[in-house]
């Protein structure tokens, strides 16, 4: 079963990379952007077939390694 995870910086954490991407896009003519926040995306192909169990495992992986909860939020998506 494949499970995806998106990790984003918390709202109150400065994202300088997102800011630079925003500025660059603006310079290229993409106006009208309010803000850009950069994040991470993971695809986890797990041997677990039970959806609930698989998600619980991925939740644990996020808390223990994939995300740093001081600065990041994670969202499990199917």
């Amino acid at each position, binding site marked *: 079963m494949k499970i995806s995870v998106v990790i984003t910086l918390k709202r109150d*954490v*400065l994202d*300088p*990379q997102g800011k*630079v991407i925003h500025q660059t896009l603006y310079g290229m003519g993409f106006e009208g952007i309010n803000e850009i926040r950069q994040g991470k995306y993971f695809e986890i192909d797990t041997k677990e077939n039970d959806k609930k169990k698989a998600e619980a495992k991925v939740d644990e992986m996020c808390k*223990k*390694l*994939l995300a*740093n909860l*001081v*600065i990041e939020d994670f969202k499990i998506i199917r």
Partner: protein
Amino acid sequence: MHSSVITFPGSNCDRDMDVALKKFGFKNRMVWHDDVELPKSDLVVLPGGFSYGDYLRCGSMASKSKIMKSILNFAQGGGKVMGVCNGFQILVESGLLPGVLLRNKYLEFICKNVFVKINNKDNSYFKDDKKDIYELHIAHNEGNYFCSKEQIKEINDNNQIALFYSDKNGNINEQSNPNGSLQNIAGIFNKQKNVLGMMPHPERMIDPALSGEDGSIFFENLINNLR
């Protein structure tokens, strides 16, 4: 005094640290990250470098390596653990120190000498230090210290800030903050003050002919305090 320097895949300041510790009287041993047991140590040092190529987040992989279990036990029992640069990043990822080190504010790798002011001398690392301000070298891309509002309150309440970035006179302000660190933090302790993490490299300042002597003052004082 026995010390152990941990080598992770991608550590590159481990041998410099070994030279520095030996120069000031430590009997140092190099310990591989995949080892399980920590040799008898009065001080454990996590060196600088780019462990695991800084994949995922700096220090995140190294903080889960086999030797870290022994280091967590050692630290929880009051053992002295010091992390420099990438070692500091590993300590925050392991949970031994609060907060996290973000990408430098202006997105540049910073490699230069800076001044740091010692904030708290009531601990084994800086007790009786004859200096208040060190000139030390920094070389990092992720040194921008950050933590939650609750954490910074707790850090200040417990006097856990070890070093501030300052100017040469000890003024702590935005101009002397190289990387955007919260409150100019360059190094912090855990609550018990037996674990220290700092971004500057004292091991690069142990020879007046090559760099400077402020690292020598730090290591000499440290070994005297541990004796």
